[in-house]
């Protein structure tokens, strides 16, 4: 577990004596004068190996919107071999290349029980693309080998040689229109234990057959959409935040984030070609 370094804090240089890398992601400094309504611990799953299409954007949006709602985010990373953090309020995980998925596979399986317990208890989670697949029952590759998932979601994924790429617009009963961008060759089918996030109005979604996109189970939102997903879908971000705050403090008193750029970005994104 590696705490996100506070802004301005020095990062230890590595063994080779090189100056510290300054390219990692950092939260902007906190500058709110108002007292915090509470602290929410957000854990990013495997950001080192599973962060290929702007997955940092989802973690950043959760942290910044927590601030804009008057809460203090505590953003932690969980990478392969780390000790799993205690008292987790919110989990976010992203996609990776095949090589990244191989690196985390064993570690993820070793964390199956703790993640399952958190999921069953109602901890809000967002899992995108690769971690969506691995939160399911299995991923069967094109060559027939089966990569086991941790089975939190009643879904199964089959590798194909067709890559589904492009802008996606999803119509979701809970969150309205969800906008994003898909890029995957695994095709996922939902079992009876989960519902879809929504139906794809533009783009493909889970697979090229049933028009469904993503999965919902308890407070887990699973999706193939990058974009990053949360910046242009503040309703989804605020669902995760509200759920985390209500579980920890009993009630959520929202602030008033300025979503005018998000609204305009959604309007323009919706008009772009597939």
């Amino acid at each position: 577990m590696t705490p996100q370094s506070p802004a301005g804090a020095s990062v230890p240089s590595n063994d080779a004596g090189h100056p510290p890398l300054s390219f990692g992601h950092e939260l902007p400094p906190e500058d709110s004068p108002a007292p915090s309504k509470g602290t929410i611990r957000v854990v990013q799953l495997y950001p080192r190996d599973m962060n290929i299409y702007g997955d940092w954007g989802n973690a950043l949006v959760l942290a910044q919107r927590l601030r804009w709602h008057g809460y203090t985010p505590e953003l932690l990373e969980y990478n392969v071999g780390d000790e799993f953090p205690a008292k987790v309020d919110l989990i976010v995980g992203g996609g990776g290349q095949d090589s990244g998925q191989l690196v985390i596979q064993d570690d993820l399986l070793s964390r199956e029980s703790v993640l399952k317990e958190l999921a069953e208890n109602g901890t809000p989670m967002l899992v995108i693309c690769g971690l969506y697949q691995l939160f399911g029952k299995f991923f069967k590759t094109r060559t027939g080998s089966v990569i086991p998932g941790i089975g939190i979601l009643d879904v199964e994924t089959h590798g194909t040689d067709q890559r589904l790429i492009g802008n996606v617009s999803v119509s979701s009963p809970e969150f309205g229109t969800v906008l994003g961008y898909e890029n995957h060759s695994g095709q996922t089918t939902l079992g009876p234990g989960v519902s879809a996030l929504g139906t794809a109005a533009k783009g493909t979604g889970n697979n090229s057959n049933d028009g469904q996109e993503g999965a919902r189970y308890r407070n887990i939102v699973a999706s193939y959409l990058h974009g990053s997903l949360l910046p242009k879908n503040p309703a989804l971000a605020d669902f995760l935040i509200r759920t985390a705050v209500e579980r920890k403090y009993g009630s959520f008193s929202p602030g008033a984030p300025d979503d005018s750029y998000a609204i305009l970005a959604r309007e323009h994104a919706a008009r772009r070609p597939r």
Partner: protein
Amino acid sequence: MFYFSVPLGKLVRRVSRLRGGGSALPGLVVEKIDPGFMRRTLSTLPHGVAVVSGTNGKTTTTKMVVELLESQGLKVFTNRTGSNFTRGVAAALLGEVDWRGRLTADVAVLELDEAHAVHFVNQVPPRYCLLLNVLRDQLDRFGEIDKTAQLLQHIASKTTGTVVLNREDPRVARIAETVHGPDVLYFGLDDSLLSTFPNDDELRAAPGSPVPPAPARPHADVVLRRVGAADADFEYDGVTATTAMKLRGVYNIFNAAAALTLARAIAVRDSVPGESAVADNEGLLKALSQVAPAFGRGESLVVDGLPLDLVLVKNPSGFRLGLKSFPAAGYATMIAINDNYADGRDMSWLWDVEFDTLREGGVDQLSGSRAYDMALRLQYDDVPIGAVNTEIAPALAAFISAAKDKPKRVFCTYTAMLAIRRELSKITTVEVVS
């Protein structure tokens, strides 16, 4: 032997030029009716063919290699129009050959997009290849970064003479293990500069997370030792030479080390027997100091008597390096993000870039079809935003008039840059790119 394909292709080229049409059509025509045209024509060159590929810096590096070789008295054929697809090469060849299909050149230096390079080397095995880097660029086109590395490896596998590799990019350096037969040369960085050039894995690593142990690094033919404000130190043959540089941006200067390595391989190491080409390192360095940036790669124009820098950004690492190479202080800043096919449609990459260096001065103007995606990105990094207008022409005009007394910098994606140059050419001198 006389091939009808050549006069026909040249004719199509003339007609399509008259119509103001695209540069690839004549290439398509000649490819269809005479698939052997390119291989046959290029195989006659005494120094053969050199292919330059990789994610970032192909255009500038190719331009440098060409100018370095010309300084050594070689006549170089290149795909100057930036049409880095196979058809573009065929079209450029048609413009250079005579009506009998003969090409008067000593060597061809070709910039090729990774995926198209694979098709090209299957038709024309190059004598040299220069592989620059593998970074996340337009993954929506190629799928995954490891796939991109495989494309570069394929180029190396078809190369007959010398493979030049970036020692500091693990995915590129690793290609050496698969090269059997050709020589392998590296270009590299001084340890003190390594942190300036994060590779893709380091880009993803957060602060404080351990950097994977560096493998033992092989000897590099050319090492970039130091980058100054207007000069740089390169080490080769055991000596360090300082040279003035017109190029700006540390990544351009690192590509100069790449270009120097390839040019030395072609002109110095493999001089044609009986000819007078000998090691003229001084001439190479002098030529390097004269190289001006390629179209949009740190290009500086003059508007209202003050500089306006155009910085092309097309992937997270390029954007980060651009922000690092061109500090914001004292400059008015505009960012223009389009999402046309050539730019990449997926906007996720903006979230892999940190914009904290723009926080203090803010961004004066945003534009492009995804201006509001950029605005949203800046909002989440607490960067103040001036005006937003998705239309490039009025946005650029507003930016220029609002920042009349300040030097200006525009970060833009590929098609946004084309639009901006078109607008700027109405008010200042802009090099014409056909």
